């Protein structure tokens, strides 16, 4: 970690005293909904009330940010909002050939057997690859010696394809993927919502498993953020293709904080 970032954290630590058992939230882009102001040129403590703090900092997150999160959380509870868009990056747009998979713990989940059906074990092993990045982050965070660390669930996929179609046109990385697959913004075909939900569930499980392996806990998203099919409620979606809004953030933060304090 560079000296500038360290100095920044120390400055922040001195700004608002943190009572024992405080909670510090930090992470990748989905943390924006949780702490409202996540993007900042330097690391900066954000007070959210009720002894809950956030850590703003520059995107993309780097080692200095994660180490800063651990240092800010020394002796406190740290909530790590890691990743959460991997399923979107790879599967928001429909891939060829179409595929599906069964889930042992959801035997009644929708399944399209006209697709190439892949073993659930393969899907799990593929998503587990994303755990490597989380393990590295956890090591940096835990170096700050927080009292407890929890990895947070990330928002469920969005159902509304019209919304996605508008949003994807404004997101270069997703459009690049679509164009590489020969699809324009107007003609883009999305992976069916039920399958995106299944993939999201696998990502959540991969992070839960990684958290456990790192000695941390995992807190799933609030059930109240989901509709009857397990997708993100329409009123909780941010204007883009993948993120949730501040209303979700307030709901989810309360849920995560309560769960972390209860599990402590």
């Amino acid at each position, binding site marked *: 970690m560079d000296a500038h970032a360290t100095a920044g954290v120390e400055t922040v630590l001195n700004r608002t005293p943190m009572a024992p058992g405080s909670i510090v939230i930090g992470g990748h882009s989905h943390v924006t909904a949780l702490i409202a102001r996540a993007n900042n040129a330097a690391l900066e403590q954000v007070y959210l009330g009720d002894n809950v703090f956030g850590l703003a900092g520059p995107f993309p997150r780097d080692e200095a940010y994660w180490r800063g999160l651990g240092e800010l959380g020394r002796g406190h509870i740290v909530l790590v909002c890691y990743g959460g868009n991997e399923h979107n990056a*790879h*599967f928001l747009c429909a*891939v*060829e*050939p179409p*595929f599906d998979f*069964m889930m*042992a713990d959801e*035997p009644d989940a929708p399944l399209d*057997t006209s697709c*190439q*059906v*892949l*073993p*659930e*074990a*393969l*899907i799990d*092993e*593929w998503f587990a*690859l994303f755990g490597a990045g989380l393990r590295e982050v956890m090591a940096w965070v835990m170096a700050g010696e927080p009292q407890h660390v929890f990895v947070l669930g990330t928002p469920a996929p969005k159902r509304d394809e019209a919304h996605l179609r508008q949003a994807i046109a404004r997101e270069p990385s997703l459009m690049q993927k679509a164009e590489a697959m020969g699809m324009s913004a107007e003609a883009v075909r999305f992976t069916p919502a039920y399958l995106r939900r299944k993939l999201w569930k696998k990502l959540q499980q991969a992070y839960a498993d990684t958290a456990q392996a790192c000695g941390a806990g995992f807190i799933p998203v609030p059930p109240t953020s989901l509709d009857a099919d397990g997708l993100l409620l329409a009123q909780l979606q941010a204007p883009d293709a993948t993120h949730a809004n501040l209303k979700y953030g307030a709901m989810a933060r309360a849920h995560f904080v309560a769960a972390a304090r209860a599990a402590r």
Partner: protein
Amino acid sequence: MTHPYRAAPDRAFWSRAVARDFAARDLVTRDVPLLRAEDRVISAGSCFAANLVPYLERAGFKYLRTETPHPEFVWAPPEAMSYDKFSAAYGNIYTPRQALQLLHRAMDAFHPREDRWIEAGAVIDPFRPGLRYKARTEREFALLTAQHLAAVARAFREADVLVFTLGLTEAWASADDGAVFPACPGTLAGAFDPKRHVFRNFSAQETTDDLLAFIETARVLNPALRVILTVSPVPLVATATDAHVLAATTYSKSVLRVAAHEAAARLKNVVYFPSYEIVAGPQAPWDYFEADRRTVSKAAIDAVMEAFLAACETSEAPSAPAPPRTGLSASIVDFECEEAAAES
């Protein structure tokens, strides 16, 4: 005085064709190319059968695959045990009986009673016991197995040519219905039960009958299918007979060679390609086998494939040696065979 040998070609004489001027490509005596440029080729058989695929593709032939890894999941570790090295994910097929059984299952004509083993949260396919990605539930197992068998049938229906390498005569079978397993239950997976699992060492007659039935069954799916038979030169890892493993190997390869000859003699559009002779014949260089005298060397595979491709219709030059790649030769033979599990 004249006699039948007087007009025979040089290849008929050991002194002229083996003792000196031996050329592996001379073993192929037919005029019709083994493969035509536009042929869609599938292959099956023992470990050795997987070796030809990179050579064929490099020479520009279309190797037909009907069951492939999904391109979006290529980051995940590949399948084990050669399941991803053949036209469909059937893995190594050691005996003609196993090949016939596979087709019968793909055609919904045989349903083995011992068709799954459940252990440690996984449902294991006794006929593909080394699969890396095992089913988690019986429903998933049924779905994945049905999908696999449909891919097998499609491969046989859509191919122009099957290259089938005969590997073994020894097998373990179900005492219940005769279903043969690629590996002895209890080695890679499952549990060995002497009441349920019996050893079979197929006779020359049984092997020939199975091979003929296999080809005839394949032609129910695809009447125009041409077949190239080879015998793997790889000796047995172990024998379950009382014989010395070398004697058991000689028996096994002899029976397979006879069966291949019989099939080629009796059925139209079935030919034998002498990979066994090229690698294991007394003319073969010492380095065609590694020091263990079982592992076939890359030099040997190069020689086999050079002779094979020389007998094919191809616009490309006869094969230069294929680059080493993971899974080729030693790794296929030693680490990716169910057969090797017998030694563990």
